[in-house]
């Protein structure tokens, strides 16, 4: 018995926590679990601070009291009705964007993989523009236009990249090409549009969660929860894809159905976010990589990626709302940070290759 124990400890010197469960143990990596707990704490803290910041400032204890007060005073209205939707949306959308990025990066085996690269975001913008020009500026029609545009673009890229199956690399190359063409189309549409339409489009394209209320947040959360279940089911075959196509198939992964399912789920996650908030760059790209480095995990950790995404987006939204001389859309903040991050990543990759 002691021999077995010694073996187990040499097998897992990096530390594992095992939780007995029906059907076998749940294996957690200790560092991953600690990082997860820390990220959760940071997210909760940022949420509380966000809930207390604004024209009607509240301290953290006041926020907590307002949330659980039954008398329905003014502080409760401010926290629960005005600020909580935005804070929850930042957390949940950040998590969704992060997981979407992890799905794409695992599938393409490329740290530059993200829903943006297969043209979803640019296509969504095209759809929103067309809706604005043809139908006019209603929120619902822009949302539907963006959804249709993004989904059609993703489908087109998938079909163009399909040749007896999908390779991650081909997906990226085709995605870049289609994105470039759609960007040209978007510019042309903007130049021809009325000033008012161009302004609305520019606002949509910046990506903002400032105007999101409960009526948009609740259905979005429901869809995202359903998608989270699908991601959990797909997680194990996704891990296998990281080993290469041959090894994955030799282990009994049905490559094309799994890849298609991952693509659909990854696109659906970002579609929900984009439909409600417009394009929010960088989170899907960076959250998986940051989480992987923090947790020191094998492959891209899904739970920690979700938590990292949540922290990134609520922090970016806090900056967008309060830390700048005047409030800006959160998409602007994430684009600036994202640009820097991307340059850093490319420089590092280039150095490794030389």
């Amino acid at each position, binding site marked *: 018995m002691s021999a077995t124990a010694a073996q187990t400890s040499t097998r897992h010197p990096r530390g594992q926590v095992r939780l007995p469960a029906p*059907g076998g143990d749940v294996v957690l990596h200790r560092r991953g679990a600690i990082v997860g707990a820390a990220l959760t704490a940071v997210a909760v803290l940022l949420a509380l601070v966000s809930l207390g910041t604004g024209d009607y400032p509240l301290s953290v204890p006041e926020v907590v009291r307002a949330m659980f007060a039954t008398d329905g005073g003014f502080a409760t209205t401010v926290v629960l009705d005005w600020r909580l939707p935005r804070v929850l949306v930042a957390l949940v959308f950040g998590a969704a964007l992060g997981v979407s990025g992890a799905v794409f990066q695992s599938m393409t085996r490329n740290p530059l993989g993200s829903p943006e690269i297969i043209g979803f975001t640019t296509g969504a913008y095209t759809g929103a523009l067309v809706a604005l020009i043809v139908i006019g500026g209603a929120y619902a029609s822009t949302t539907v236009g963006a959804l249709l545009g993004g989904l059609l673009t993703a489908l087109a890229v998938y079909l163009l990249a399909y040749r007896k199956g999908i390779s991650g690399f081909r997906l990226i190359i085709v995605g870049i090409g289609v994105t470039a063409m759609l960007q040209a189309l978007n510019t042309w549409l903007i130049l021809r549009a009325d000033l008012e339409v161009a302004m609305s489009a520019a606002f949509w394209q910046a990506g903002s969660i400032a105007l999101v209320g409960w009526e948009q947040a609740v259905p979005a959360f429901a869809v995202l929860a359903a998608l989270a279940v699908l991601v959990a089911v797909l997680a194990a075959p996704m891990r296998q894809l990281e080993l290469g196509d041959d090894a994955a198939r030799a282990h009994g*992964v049905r490559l094309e159905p799994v890849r298609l399912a991952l693509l659909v789920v990854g696109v659906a996650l970002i579609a929900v976010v984009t439909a409600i908030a417009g394009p929010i760059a960088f989170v899907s790209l960076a959250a998986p990589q940051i989480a992987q480095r923090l947790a020191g995990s094998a492959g891209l950790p899904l739970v920690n990626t979700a938590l990292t995404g949540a922290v990134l987006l609520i922090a970016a939204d806090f900056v967008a709302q309060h830390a700048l001389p005047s409030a800006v859309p959160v998409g602007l903040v994430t684009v600036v940070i994202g640009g820097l991050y991307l340059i850093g990543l490319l420089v590092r990759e280039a150095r490794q290759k030389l």
Partner: protein
Amino acid sequence: MREESSVTGPSVEQQTAPRARLGARDVTLAYDTRVIAQELSVEIPDGSFTVIVGPNACGKSTLLRALSRLLKPTAGDVVLDGRSIASFRAKEAARVIGLLPQSSTAPDGITVADLVARGRYPHQKLVSRWSAADEAAVTRAMESTHVTDLAGRLVDELSGGQRQRVWAAMVLAQETPILLLDEPTTFLDIAHQIELLDLFADLHRGGATLVAVLHDLNHAARYATHLVAMRDGAVVASGPPSDIVTADLVEEVFGLPCVVIDDPVTGTPLVVPRSGRP
């Protein structure tokens, strides 16, 4: 030679030909429109260490891909236990046939133990977690490939020889009675090649059926119990190396004039090339 002694249990009444769980029947193999082999038939004798040899582009790796159901034949069938392998559920087949591919990718930051554990996938259900059987299989796989001491190391940090043993451990953790090895020794130095081949020979003695594609004819002749020589997508000869490896066969298959002598260490055929020039 030791081949008869090991595998078959005492209860089995041997037929004249050894039973074959896995084989290809009249398969046509092609990538897109490029046909590699036509009406090719190969049987993998149970309990054998089968090695497929042949010149570059003779279709040996393609045959192995078909046997491992990575490549679907355009005609004919790969047959496992009397049924077309295409009719097996993917995980079901993966519990019988394991494959060490020519190239695999280790995810960033993965440890040896975690990588080996990924070989357990075909045994895990949608919701099932890590079981005692999983744990035991991984421990055994790491012991028999001598990577137990490396368990906590990062795969990225290992040498080429260590890494190949770790990949072998991952396939062993899959616990399949049949193992396919696609050029497992290609990027290793001579000492690590022999180390790995000895490991496979041990597995074979332990009862596994192995099918390997090897480049080195002398390694093939030394380790194989059943040799398949291919050229231009067709099998030229098959059988125990000591029966079929002759100077004529080598010249026919590889176009290389040579002398075949007895290996001074093992007594198996040893191919000594003459100059390739006339």
